């Protein structure tokens, strides 16, 4: 089902206020001088839809950086899952991040035939309003197939001169749109919205130099490339890249006892394959002690392993890791160096 309507700019804040009254609302806000962040909204006037990218991806609404999985009592020894299934609205998600959510739906939901109950409950409780965007110099969504994603969204907004062209993609989305003061689109507004999508592709100039489907083969050929070692020489293993990544989902689980020692809670939090301790086993043996191995693992996981398993790169071209890398390492530059080496050898 698709129903299209125009939301005039002047009616946006009224709509957001209405939405916020129905369910908790997470949307982008301005943070500091130049940054944006997804945040739970208290004042709808804070919502900013003119952002390019947020520091952290909207993944946090579905897979929080830290969450309580279980409360545990000591006597009797019992564990109670803490499922969060309260409906909420995730507003203003760009197509790249929406693609990432679809990939997490698979990784946390279907992969290995196991449904993560915490992720799945949050995902079911979410209504997602996506928002199309224009790229900056870090974006490369066009070359990883994520710049026009609509699947996974309930409602899709495209910026037009008058405000937004809204398309309801699900019943949940239609219900949200029904709460807005909207009007039927003029034919030229539909054309304008189509033009937006085309302009977006034209403006996305940063690219991977090879089709995603061919990357596993090329990367495998360059498993022992010096590029990994050279990248490792610059990398600090700080984990920023994985923390800001919309598709990374590795986590650690820890139990923390209350001071009374009568109860404890079991938490999971983001972990990073870039950390030295990530693959350490009891007794201290580290299966990825060399930074080169950890760096390679990150690119292989994104472009080889999960790409082969799911048929899609686990990178959506959002540009966060490259923009925020402490050492200024560009994910695209590294990938393209490896691609160039592989092609050179074949030629």
């Amino acid at each position, binding site marked *: 089902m698709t129903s299209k309507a125009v939301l005039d700019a002047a009616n946006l804040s009224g709509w957001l206020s209405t939405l916020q009254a129905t369910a908790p609302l997470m949307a982008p806000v301005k943070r500091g001088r130049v940054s944006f962040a997804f945040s739970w909204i208290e004042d709808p006037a804070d919502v900013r839809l003119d952002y390019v990218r947020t520091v952290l991806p909207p993944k946090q609404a579905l897979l929080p950086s830290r969450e309580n999985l279980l409360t545990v009592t000591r006597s009797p020894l019992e564990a109670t899952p803490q499922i969060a299934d309260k409906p909420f609205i995730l507003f203003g998600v760009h197509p790249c991040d929406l693609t990432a959510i679809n990939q997490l739906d698979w990784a946390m939901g279907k992969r290995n035939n196991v449904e993560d109950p915490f992720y799945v409950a949050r995902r079911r409780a979410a209504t997602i309003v996506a928002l199309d965007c224009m790229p900056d110099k870090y974006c490369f969504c066009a070359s990883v197939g994520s710049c026009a994603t609509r699947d996974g969204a309930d409602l899709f907004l495209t910026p037009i001169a008058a405000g937004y062209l809204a398309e309801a993609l699900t019943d949940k989305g239609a219900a949200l749109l029904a709460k807005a003061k909207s009007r039927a689109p003029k034919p030229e507004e539909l054309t304008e919205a189509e033009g937006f999508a085309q302009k977006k592709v034209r403006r996305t100039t940063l690219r991977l130099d090879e089709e995603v489907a061919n990357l596993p083969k090329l990367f495998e050929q360059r498993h022992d490339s010096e590029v990994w070692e050279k990248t490792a020489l610059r990398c600090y293993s700080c984990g920023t890249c994985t923390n800001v990544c919309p598709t990374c989902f590795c986590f650690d689980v820890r139990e923390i006892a209350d001071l009374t020692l009568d109860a404890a809670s079991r938490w999971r939090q983001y972990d990073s394959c870039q950390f030295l301790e990530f*693959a350490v086993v009891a007794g201290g043996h580290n299966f990825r002690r060399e930074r080169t191995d950890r760096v390679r693992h990150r690119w292989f996981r994104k472009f080889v392993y999960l790409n082969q398993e799911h048929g899609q790169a686990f990178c959506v071209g959002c540009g966060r890791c490259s923009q925020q890398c402490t050492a200024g390492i560009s994910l695209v530059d590294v990938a393209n160096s490896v691609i160039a080496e592989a092609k050179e050898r074949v030629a």
Partner: protein
Amino acid sequence: MTATFVRSFPPRSGERLYAPEPATIVRTKQLTELERLFEIKFADGRDLGHQPGQFVQVSVFGYGEAPISVSSSPAKRGSFELCVRNMGGLTAALHRLDEGDRVGIRGPFGNGFPMSCMRKMDCLMIAGGIGMAPLRSVINTVLADRNAYGRLIVLYGSKTPKEILFRDEIETWTGGKKNEILLTVDNAAPGWDGNVGVVTTLFPKIKVNPKAVAAALVGPPVMYRFVLAELNALRVPDNQIFLSLERRMKCGMGKCGHCQIDNRCVCIDGPVFTAEESKHLHESL
């Protein structure tokens, strides 16, 4: 022979996937200075339902979870055994628990050794150190259905004689012509008149028919390369060699990413891999 691993699990879902099930320690036995055996029973007395080589996640209140391989054979009904080395943290806390105390259990996880592939074959079991803990589950499975298998050859290396696990029990394995149990220690001590040297020094003492043998290896990371070289020299085909690879399994369900070897999750695709599979994994050995 094609290894048929248990690798397609029924779909798992539900709120309690991460919640351990309470179980009671019904017996403990100090095996060595560092290792202790825990016999564990669920409240309803049900079987764990595991395969030899699988592991469980053991919860100790206030400490969290640790992956421990099951040391008893599925032939043992109503309870199961875990052989745990005191490594500090959770395992130290576990060692402080006693009979009647409760722990939490999730699992069993992983594929386990492909016992159906080992039937009718000569079983060559090679253990180093605490690798004997999971291998004991395989050995006792063979012993419980002795005529279904060919010869049983166990090569077991320990650092010193006092670190040999299940010493009393090992003596009971030696009965019968079909069983050959060979022990070695890296460093001898007074009273030890057996072999001295790493586990590979036992290979000249055995004769195997490479076509009819299935080999199972569990030990420290350094052991695999050397033992594989010996098995290759004996011309044992790579798809008749089964390695249990240790990694840091956290969730047990292929989600958390910790136990990954290249593109494989040890908690789902392993911990047991054929040497053939392992050859194609850069990070395996």
